[in-house]
């Protein structure tokens, strides 16, 4: 591709008078990307998350050993070596392989929580904001009540009732993490509810259902994505905490929090059993935090340095 065509493409993207909706959208995305990619830390965050996804997808290729079956006879609690990069645990399993497979469970938790909690928050927030009146008061009162709760403790109580397990942990975390999304969605809805174009759609006879779904919800998406990304680290930490307490993923699942819990028993002598999975959690949450900060600065310049 010649420099000229690149130049003309950039001009097309940055045009003041986009000829089509697509061009306008691409142009906006391009501007946001330029702002995002100027932030080196945000790029690091994105690389970490891409790496996480790749590791999860290619776990079968990347992991030299089984994640669940170990060599009890010869390979118990070995320190890190060329054969076992991060050592082995008390059941003779290769910790590196378990961490690689654990990436899948981390993604599993994060994605499931996001696709359960975000739509609930979006729905509650937009309906409350658009309907106003008593609906708004009651829905927001409920949201505030959930917001006033300690999240981890509430998740613990839920898991206590539902029984331990990774699915229940996901459910418990989702139940405790939707309220901020409802807050954001409502705030966004309030800013557009009385705008002229919503009035125009109303005049054309669109049903409230259609207005909320087609005209209000899409506007809340970008701030919601930012918030969900920023929350990812918290979700990972809560899930790991539940796993650590034995309430999340159950053995022999290679979930990182549960791996730390099993390494705890040998922490003073075989510290590496617990060290490696914790480092993995730290790196991935750091990645989500960096990515979230970068996205916020790129998509929402108003928030500036907050």
């Amino acid at each position, binding site marked *: 591709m010649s420099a000229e065509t690149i130049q003309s493409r950039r001009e097309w993207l940055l045009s003041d008078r986009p000829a089509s909706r697509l061009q306008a959208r691409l142009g906006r995305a391009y501007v946001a990307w330029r702002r995002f990619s100027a932030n080196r830390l945000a790029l690091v965050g994105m690389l970490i998350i891409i790496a996480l996804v790749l590791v999860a997808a290619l776990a079968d290729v990347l992991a030299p050993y089984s994640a669940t079956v170990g060599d009890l006879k010869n390979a118990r609690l070995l320190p890190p070596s060329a054969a076992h990069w991060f050592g082995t645990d008390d059941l003779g399993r290769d910790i590196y392989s378990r961490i690689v497979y654990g990436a899948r469970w981390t993604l599993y938790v994060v994605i499931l929580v996001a696709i359960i909690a975000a739509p609930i928050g979006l729905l509650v927030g937009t309906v409350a904001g658009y309907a106003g009146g008593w609906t708004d008061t009651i829905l927001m009162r409920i949201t505030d009540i959930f917001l006033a709760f300690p999240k981890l403790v*509430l998740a613990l109580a839920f898991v206590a*009732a*539902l029984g331990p397990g990774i699915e229940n942990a996901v459910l418990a975390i989702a139940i405790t993490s939707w309220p901020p999304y409802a807050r954001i969605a409502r705030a966004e809805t309030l800013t557009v509810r009385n705008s002229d174009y919503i009035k125009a759609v109303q005049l054309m006879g669109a049903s409230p259902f259609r207005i909320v779904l087609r005209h209000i919800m899409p506007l809340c998406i970008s701030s919601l994505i930012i918030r969900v990304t920023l929350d990812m*680290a918290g979700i990972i*930490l809560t899930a790991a905490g539940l796993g*650590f307490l034995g309430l999340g993923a159950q053995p022999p699942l290679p979930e990182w*929090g549960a791996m730390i819990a099993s390494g705890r028993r040998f922490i003073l002598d075989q*510290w590496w059993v617990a060290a490696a999975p914790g480092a993995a959690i*730290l790196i991935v949450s750091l990645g989500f*935090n960096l990515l979230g900060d970068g996205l916020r600065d790129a998509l929402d310049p108003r928030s500036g340095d907050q």
Partner: protein
Amino acid sequence: MSVAENQVAAGRGSARAVAILSSLGRFLVVAVTTYLGLLAVTFFIGRVIPIDPVLAVLGDRAPTAVVERTRREMGLDLPWIEQFYLYVKAALRGDFGTSVLTTNPVMADIRRVFPATIELATLGTIIGAVIGVPLGVLAAVKRGSLIDQIARVVGLIGYSVPIFWLGLLGLVLFYAKLQWIAFPARLDVVYEYTFTPITGFYLLDAAIQGQWDVFHDAWRHIVLPAALLGYLSLAYISRMTRSFMLNELAQEYIVAARAKGLSETRIIWGHALRNAAVPMVTVIALSYANLLEGSVLTETVFSWPGIGLYITNSLQNADMNAVLGGTIAIGSVFIAINLLSDLLYRLLDPRTKTG
């Protein structure tokens, strides 16, 4: 002052009183509904989700007679709404049932363990605020400098690190290798039997009674878990302080303060921080509430006999009354802190008094 002006002033005074009363009324409504909501959720968790709530409370080894009596006591044959009414009534009396594990009333257990958690969280918040506020201020004043970068990295790691893991590594380093701190517990066994606490806050109690050897021992036990919680709160407090300070430093009154010839020190600490302090109160209160929660994991790692360890022990033994009682206890303190910080905000900000 003229008569008319006096009347105006008096009118303003009573308007202020009315404003304060009405906001107090609103606080009460919020507090009551939030607390009811908390009870509704724990009721839902304890009575609705389990297939047999009695089993959830007693475990499956209880004799049939006990099961039957508990079933009647819990009012499980009544309609939901009546059950909830009885539940709320009991909770307001501080009656959360009996713990299977300790065989004590849950409330008595909570009274016993809560001071340990408060001591830990308070020390953590003090560490977090004492380091976090100046760090945030410096990061804002020297924006983009090395100290700003350091504050940013320290904060990001604080947001991303699993605290229980950091605690374990801390034990390896400071307890096993360096032997700077004592083993996971609240006091050495020697003192467990000779020391009589007064308030339940051991550092304070030891100091009051002048038992400095106990104080030293208690300090060696609390310092690492408190430092860890302090780090979490430092990450949050420094980040928010920086952001509030940047906001204040961009205001016109800062230019005016410079025009008055004030020193930078005076401008930063006397004007900008004074203004930032108003929202900072809320941040520090929230961070304190978060530490109460963070204590659940920290206490488990450090065998710290507080509410967090109590809840997790009860969880492991399917002791539902104790779990929910602990949840309500932490939740209530959470709600109280939220409301207090709101109230404090209003007291500190002169603009809200006449608003």
